[in-house]
């Protein structure tokens, strides 16, 4: 077996300080990190004042996270029943050998498509596309990720409209629109800082949110809509902009197709209708549309909110359409197509998508039913991507040729449309990261082989056959490329030692490929070697890059489409989308009503909400972070609290037709009446061994939602997390909760 990237010597006695890219959340702040004798001791602001504000208190907790006494340090093999959380420690070599043998047995019995992977690149970082490379070489298309519900799907849907994914030109924008997105000082910190700087320059802002969020408090206009009605609101904006001729007629004429069809669709949404759907005054909707359209450079930054709705594809496309018709595409102050960094090979190039046969690609779950971010659309876009961006396969934000997670867990649970029997989960608490947690549990209990690659034991890892300890950002070299979201490269230097038996995701996939007999397709012996390979077009090595700089940012170029056109079948911005039309979907955006509140379930619930101390389901075991938010809270309006007998700080039970969770109550004037806000990803690591799966079913928002076809977005097949019916009532505290959760410590 080839052992790659061995741990550095533990006998080293030095102080090392280096540049880091924090991976405790998904935003990638650049920091300075110090280690003493191989142990990380301090995280500080960057020494370049332009980057120094980009740091939050999660980042400075890296020493507590990386040196946590319960960090996984040795591979574990299950010895009890699945989920019983009983293990024996084994060597890394034994684990790789056994995993290879068992994976081969699944492939031999059920075909390569029976092997699936769910991962979070934000957490693992150093895969360099080798997971897809491994899967493509064995013949499985069933890779998925949380980015299918968050950002990756935005990238894929944006490509259907204009062949790329934009990023706001924050430095020059004069107006920005936040659709429920709420960047704060300690969440999405660099975005927060850029928004603050734009406001200081005089930029206006429009915030669309059922809650008076921190960003809404500062907004020029706040539209407090009913949760989940964003698509209707944006159709109303399109109507105003077209009726009042606030669009860029020259750009539309030269570079857009489907204008008349769009106009006809917008005419179906007069402001009175939109106001009724959204619960906001028509005049205010029109005022907001004018403010956006008339700004000399305006942007609509990415938002997770419209990624998780029953008409998500339409909501995302409407944002694309607004950018286009107002002339804000790839212009100063609008939104840029960054393109690829010409000096760095893409992950998609390393992923070898031509190695998996078209027949196997077509077996990807979701390919035939909800194809928007699967191989199916990526295949259609191949020649257009090649024409404009120089590569047929480009994986933006990891999200442009994914399997559909809901269909994947259905296949794992029920064998529909075929059995999936081996599931690898890396840096991803899969059990709690997708809708319909009960089905995911059933899916995992029906597997022949589960491998988890993690830094801590999670409820998902508790269900595995093997748990492989992962590494962290202070322990490895990396050059982060933001997965084509931008064209920048940022430097991460290893300063600390990884546990001896821990592995990067790069090392895991490389060693497994060697074990399974195709190691020659994984020729890189270390992370530095694979980075050197990716850097070859630039003519420098990783070592040379690191000696010279901590960031590479190509000179921006604007309005590139004038030379290349757009990477769509028409070569133009497709207001009416030919790919969706050809696949049998409505080529125009629409509003699709979500299941409405009823007497039985009178609230609109919106879940999937991020809290400052945590990223997704992580960090509840980090003392300095957990103490900032010791327990989860429902946000509820005071009038609703009075009516339902809810008391501040007391426990309540939220029920939907599909499940129930318990949290404490937080009564907030900022809430829109009739709405409930639910934070994402709560479990209780300290209860491991005392509460089933460490409380994974006590407060997790994934318990509340289902993913049956009637509530999935048609085109992507993603669930509705923003405004589904529920009811709330007082209850006792769940059993087995710790003192910190109960507030008695």
């Amino acid at each position: 077996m080839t052992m790659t990237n061995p741990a550095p010597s533990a006998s080293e006695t030095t102080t090392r300080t280096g540049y880091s890219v924090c991976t405790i959340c998904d935003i990638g702040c650049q920091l300075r990190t110090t280690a003493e004798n191989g142990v990380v001791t301090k995280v500080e602001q960057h020494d370049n004042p332009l980057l120094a504000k980009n740091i939050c208190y999660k980042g400075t907790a890296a020493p507590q996270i990386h040196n946590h006494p319960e960090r996984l340090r040795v591979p574990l093999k299950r010895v009890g029943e699945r989920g019983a959380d009983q293990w024996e420690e084994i060597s890394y070599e034994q684990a790789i050998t056994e995993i290879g043998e068992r994976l081969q047995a699944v492939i031999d019995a059920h075909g390569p498509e029976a092997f699936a992977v769910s991962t979070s690149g934000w957490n693992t970082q150093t895969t360099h596309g080798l997971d897809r490379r491994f899967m493509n070489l064995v013949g499985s298309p069933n890779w998925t990720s949380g980015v299918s519900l968050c950002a990756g799907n935005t990238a894929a849907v944006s490509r259907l409209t204009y062949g790329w994914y934009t990023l706001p030109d924050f430095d020059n924008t004069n107006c920005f629109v936040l659709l429920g997105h709420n960047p704060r000082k300690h969440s999405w910190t660099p975005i927060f800082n850029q928004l603050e700087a734009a406001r200081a320059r005089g930029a206006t802002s429009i915030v669309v949110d059922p809650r008076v969020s921190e960003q809404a408090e500062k907004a020029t206009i706040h539209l407090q809509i009913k949760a989940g009605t964003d698509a209707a609101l944006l159709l109303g904006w399109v109507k105003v902009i077209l009726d009042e001729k606030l669009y860029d007629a020259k750009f539309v004429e030269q570079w857009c197709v489907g204008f008349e069809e769009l106009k006809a669709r917008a005419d179906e949404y007069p402001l009175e209708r939109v106001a009724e759907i959204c619960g906001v005054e028509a005049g205010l909707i029109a005022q907001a549309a004018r403010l956006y359209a008339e700004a000399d450079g305006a942007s609509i930054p990415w938002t997770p909110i419209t990624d998780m709705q029953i008409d998500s594809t339409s909501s995302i496309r409407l944002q694309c359409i607004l950018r286009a018709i107002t002339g804000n595409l790839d212009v100063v102050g609008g939104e840029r197509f960054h393109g690829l960094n010409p000096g760095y090979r893409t992950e998609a190039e390393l992923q070898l998508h031509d190695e998996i046969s078209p027949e196997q690609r077509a077996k990807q779950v979701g390919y035939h039913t909800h194809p928007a971010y699967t191989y199916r659309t990526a295949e259609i876009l191949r020649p257009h991507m090649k024409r404009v961006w120089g590569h047929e396969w480009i994986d933006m934000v990891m999200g442009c040729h994914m399997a559909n997670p809901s269909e994947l867990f259905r296949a794992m649970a029920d064998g529909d449309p075929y059995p999936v029997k081996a599931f690898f989960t890396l840096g991803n608490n899969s059990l709690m990261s997708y809708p319909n947690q009960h089905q995911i549990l059933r899916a995992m209990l029906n597997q022949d082989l589960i491998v988890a690659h993690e830094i801590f034991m999670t409820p998902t890892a508790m269900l595995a056959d093997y748990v492989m300890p992962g590494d962290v950002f202070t322990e490895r070299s990396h050059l982060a490329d933001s997965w084509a979201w931008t064209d920048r490269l940022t430097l991460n230097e290893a300063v600390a030692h990884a546990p001896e038996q821990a592995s990067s995701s790069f090392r895991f996939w490389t060693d497994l490929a060697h074990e399974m007999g195709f190691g020659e397709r994984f020729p890189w012996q270390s992370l530095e070697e694979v980075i050197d390979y990716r850097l070859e077009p630039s003519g420098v090595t990783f070592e040379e890059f690191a000696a010279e700089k901590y960031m590479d940012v190509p000179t921006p170029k604007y309005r590139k489409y004038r030379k290349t056109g757009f990477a769509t079948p028409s070569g133009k911005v497709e207001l009416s989308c030919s790919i969706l039309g050809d696949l049998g979907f409505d080529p125009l955006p629409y509003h699709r009503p979500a299941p409405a509140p009823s007497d039985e379930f009178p609230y609109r619930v919106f879940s999937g909400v991020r809290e400052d101390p945590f990223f997704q389901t992580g960090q509840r075991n980090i003392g300095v972070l957990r103490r900032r938010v010791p327990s989860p809270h429902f946000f509820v309006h005071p009038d609703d609290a009075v009516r339902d007998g809810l008391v501040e700080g007391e426990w309540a039970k939220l029920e939907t037709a599909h499940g129930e969770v318990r949290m404490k109550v937080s009564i907030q004037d900022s809430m829109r009446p009739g709405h409930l806000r639910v934070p994402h990803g709560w479990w209780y690591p300290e209860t491991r061994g005392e509460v089933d799966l460490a409380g994974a079913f006590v407060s997790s928002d994934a318990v509340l939602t289902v993913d049956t076809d009637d509530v999935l977005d048609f085109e992507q097949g993603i669930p509705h997390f923003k405004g589904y019916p529920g009811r709330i009532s007082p209850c006792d505290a769940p059993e087995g909760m710790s003192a910190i959760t109960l507030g008695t410590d």
Partner: protein
Amino acid sequence: MAQRSEFGHRVLELKTSIMGRLAPKILSRRTTGIDGVAKKMAMKGSSPEPDAALIAELAHPDDVPEIVTSRTPDSAEVGDHE
């Protein structure tokens, strides 16, 4: 946006292009020569002093025990469940 002229586009693109060409100098490790001048220009107006309020927000107390399970001996939280 509809009001921006072609000339207006070109002026703004020229300005950002110039800034873009300075960026590698601003983001290099060198602090002398052209790189040093570029850094001074870019940082003009920004305070060289650390932001004390932000530093205070980023700090964590030393005496907070980690949250562990009963599987880890000598834990501050062991036996803490009700």
